[in-house]
């Protein structure tokens, strides 16, 4: 057993790093879908914007100023984009998910094309900041320091988001909106503000995930679709509107994509959707889905 663990230690560690990144990305999608009942297919495009902001401000050179500036700019950009998307999708409330999907997918396509025109189609590398751009020895295996840091950042963010949602009155309001929107409105709360806030916050996290994911996945065209798919799978596995679900879903998919592929390389292409199918059969609402969520 210890031999097996030693052999696959790097893969497990890597699963946590990927899981951290997926959590930061997916928690926004989950809250927006679960609470606002808006299927935001533009979520991947927000990640893409973050990735290219990271590329723009680091300029391919490893630097803390560049990286932190990129994080701040991406966060701001995400907030704004979230507010705009929240306003744009408001008239579509009650018209079903297809209209929302069309609108947000259209926005995503436009964003991807604009980025392609601005930055070209070459793959761009976003270097990790100094000190994290090297490998460290973990139990005798070389492992990129940046990915270790990513696990830490993911853990901190998970705790912060969980505390806000579970332990504050604002969080209570958000949870209440997820489980019963009409009731919250009846209590005299302007749920439009809560909605806009959640949309902005979720979008900000997606853009921030783009910067954070830069040193792992780089910046390239088509990345938006890849991460959107992963985020959707995470949300379906974890259940809608649940922070805990997004965290567990992200960690599961992180391990499936890392440890799973290492153990079963021949089935690498099927593992992701195999896991999804398994969860859908066992728990159709996701592992932590609420019973009254927007199904």
């Amino acid at each position: 057993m210890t031999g097996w663990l030693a052999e696959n230690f790097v893969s497990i560690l890597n699963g946590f790093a990927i899981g951290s990144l997926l959590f930061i990305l997916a928690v926004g999608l989950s809250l927006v879908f679960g609470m606002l009942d808006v299927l935001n297919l533009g979520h991947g495009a927000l990640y893409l914007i973050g990735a290219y902001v990271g590329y723009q401000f680091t300029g391919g050179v490893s630097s803390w100023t560049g990286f932190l500036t990129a994080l701040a700019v991406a966060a701001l950009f995400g907030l704004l984009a979230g507010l705009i998307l929240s306003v744009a999708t408001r008239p579509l409330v009650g018209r079903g998910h297809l209209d929302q999907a069309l609108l947000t997918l259209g926005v995503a396509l436009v964003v991807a094309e604009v980025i392609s025109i601005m930055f070209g189609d070459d793959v761009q590398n976003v270097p990790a900041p100094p000190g994290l751009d090297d490998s460290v020895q973990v139990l005798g295996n070389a492992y990129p320091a940046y990915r270790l840091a990513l696990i830490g950042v993911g853990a901190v963010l998970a705790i912060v988001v969980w505390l806000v949602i579970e332990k504050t009155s604002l969080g209570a309001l958000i949870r209440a909106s997820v489980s019963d929107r009409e009731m919250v409105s009846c209590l005299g709360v302007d749920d439009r503000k809560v909605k806009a806030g959640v949309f902005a916050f979720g979008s900000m996290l997606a853009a921030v995930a783009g910067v954070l994911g830069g040193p792992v996945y780089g910046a390239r065209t088509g990345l938006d679709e890849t991460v959107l798919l992963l985020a959707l799978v995470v949300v379906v596995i974890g259940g809608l509107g649940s922070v805990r679900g997004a965290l567990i879903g992200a960690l599961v998919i992180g391990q499936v994509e890392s440890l799973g592929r290492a153990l079963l390389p021949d089935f690498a292409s099927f593992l992701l959707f195999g896991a999804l199918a398994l969860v859908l059969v066992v728990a159709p609402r996701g592992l932590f889905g609420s019973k009254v969520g927007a199904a």
Partner: protein
Amino acid sequence: MAQPVLSRRAALGMVGLAGLATAAGCGNSVGGGPSGGSGSSGGGAVKVGLVIPQDGVYTPLGVDLRNGWQLYLDQHEGKLGGYEVETVIADEGEGPDTGVPAIQGLITRDNVDLLVGIVNSASALGSVEAIAAAKKVLVIANAGAIAVTGQARNPYVWRASFTNAQAAFAMGEHLAGQQPEGGVYLMAPDYAAGQETFVAFKEAYVGGGGTIAGEALTPFGTTQDFQPFLSGIPGSGAGATFVFYSGGEAVDYVTQYAEFGLKDTVPLYGSGFLTEGSVLEAQGEAALGIQTALHYSTEIDNAANADFVAAYSDAHGVLPTCFAVQTWDSALVLDLALAEAADLSGDAISDALAGLGEISGSPRGPWVFDGQTPKQIEYLREVQQGDGVLINAVVDELGEYAQ
């Protein structure tokens, strides 16, 4: 209509083909009718359909291919074999679903005389039938699947690029000579080009007495993180890794290979696309020291290449790639063939291409058509720090390889 055609052909003949002038003129007036209108429309003009990706993952290649083609025309007053060239560009897209209609459109709607381009092998294979039915020559400027000029060969489809097997076979022989301790670990994306690379490498390397330490085919297009596959290498005891990756996957692979500490312990070898063109810039220092085999490098020491690199750099501000050379060479062979061909029919151009013999004046060095695909020198290249940019320095010539 026939009279001016004849006189222009005769004038053309006086420039270069004095002895053949009469024959060429006759050939055209006789052959012009059945070839179907387009050839006779201008007389001294040839309409070329350039099929290159302008959208999707291959877009950067499409840019290089167009630049190479345009550069040759600019250097030769816009003429090939004496004909004024009109280039019609069609978007190949990512796969045969867009590539094949693009070719059909050029043939039926634009009525081109011949076609150049095609990046994707599936698009090339998918259009072979349409090309054969239209009897128009297609010069493939990239697609490397062996079948294009192998099983699916037809007299009108020529290739001025490479086959997937060439670089892998050359590197297989090279590594068999080196005998890295512990054998070689193989990795490639799980699609036709990756699989052909595996087969060719094993044939050369195992045939030369080498051992395979392990191998992995990674899902094509959906693998961003290679760590799960890289983790098999240290345990296998391999003394070297040989891979085929290109584009975005090449960037991910090379940077992660360095990040996970394998670069310093297990030397990385590859087919040349691993470090070709813009991907090399994105890989940065992680690529230093990687050795690859390819039919071209900007560092090849010959006069044609020196001129080519200088002209291309002046025009576009970056070093040329093997892809740019492939369209430049497509234009070169067509220039030579059209000067010899009796008329612009597919049969005449095919015959002329078949009769070219050794093609000198190419930046990649001398090569010949062997079974309608190049028999050419494979170069052993190593990524080194050049003058401000990373370059693929030529370490050695691995010999000539065909199909």
